[in-house]
């Protein structure tokens, strides 16, 4: 009985590392990302654990990112980190893990209508934030760390606003413990962020509603002292 044959890919031992590398980058410029991935994979297979092989792995991360494949980029970066524990390109790999999940504004129509994307779920923002934090902690002075710190501020505020919207939702529903907990996430876990005064508003209201007058008064004092010009009852502005 005829067994199904695997298609015999040509083993082009002929092309040298440089030629394969050239071929990959020509294809990237031409937008043929799949073709570029193929040549990079062949390059890596032919020169494993060598500088050319490592470079091919790095470029594969970048090409997957260009293909907007979030999960693929994160996995490629992770593979590089696992397989090259001592490479000096590690900061780039961590950075790309952060970029894989980083997103700007959510869908086009919501942006045009000015809906805050923090109202959506923030799983990707959390993944991106954790990756950037790992980069900044491991390689504080690498040249990617500064850009990562900026993006972390943006992400931290997005997450804080998300928790604020949920706190507001629970406050409106009359679930004061839930509202207080979400406000606490903003106040405790995501410092520094620009949403804290608005979160304190919610905390004060929640305490008052359950009869914790002293806590409400203490929190109002903290709010007035550290955010004198804050106007109560507003919604935190989207960055």
């Amino acid at each position, binding site marked *: 009985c005829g067994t199904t044959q695997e298609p015999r890919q040509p083993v082009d031992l002929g092309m040298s590392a440089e030629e394969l590398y050239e071929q990959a980058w020509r294809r990237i410029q031409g937008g043929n990302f799949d073709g570029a991935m193929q040549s990079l994979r062949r390059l890596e297979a032919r020169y494993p654990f060598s500088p050319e092989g490592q470079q091919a792995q790095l470029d594969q991360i970048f090409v997957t990112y260009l293909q907007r494949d979030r999960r693929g980029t994160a996995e490629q970066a992770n593979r590089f980190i696992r397989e090259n524990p001592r490479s000096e390109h590690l900061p780039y790999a961590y950075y790309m893990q952060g970029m894989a999940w980083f997103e700007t504004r959510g869908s086009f129509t919501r942006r045009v209508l000015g809906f805050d994307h923090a109202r959506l779920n923030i799983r990707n923002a959390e993944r991106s934030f954790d990756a950037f934090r790992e980069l900044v902690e491991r390689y504080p002075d690498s040249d990617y760390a500064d850009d990562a710190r900026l993006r972390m501020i943006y992400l931290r505020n997005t997450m804080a606003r998300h928790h604020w919207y949920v706190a507001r939702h629970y406050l409106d*529903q009359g*679930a*004061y413990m839930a509202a207080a*907990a979400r406000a*606490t996430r903003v106040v405790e876990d995501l410092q520094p962020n620009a949403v804290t005064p608005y979160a304190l508003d919610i905390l004060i209201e929640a305490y008052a509603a359950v009869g*914790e007058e002293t*806590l409400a008064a203490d929190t109002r004092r*903290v709010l007035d002292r550290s955010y004198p010009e804050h106007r109560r009852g507003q919604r935190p502005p989207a960055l």
Partner: protein
Amino acid sequence: CVYRQDIPQGNLLDDEDIEQVEVGMTQSQVRFLLGSPMMDAPFHADRWLYHYYLDSQREHRNRNRFLSIQFDEQGRVSHIDFDPNGRRNGDSGRRNSDG
């Protein structure tokens, strides 16, 4: 009127457990008896809030309980503020007016 679902919030505790909490107990003893406090107090780490309320349209189900436990610097219970009927002020459970 508009149907509103029941809203339970906080630690649903039994009276026997609450009565066993005494001044001087350590935090782990309180946690063993009452579990984790449900209301966060970010600026008052020395205070564990075990309040409970259940908002329901069906009056007979409504329940309120106010329980706040304060600890001293050594982490020992210094003050127990317990009010079996709770200290809710006014009708909570709806923020802005009906549609």
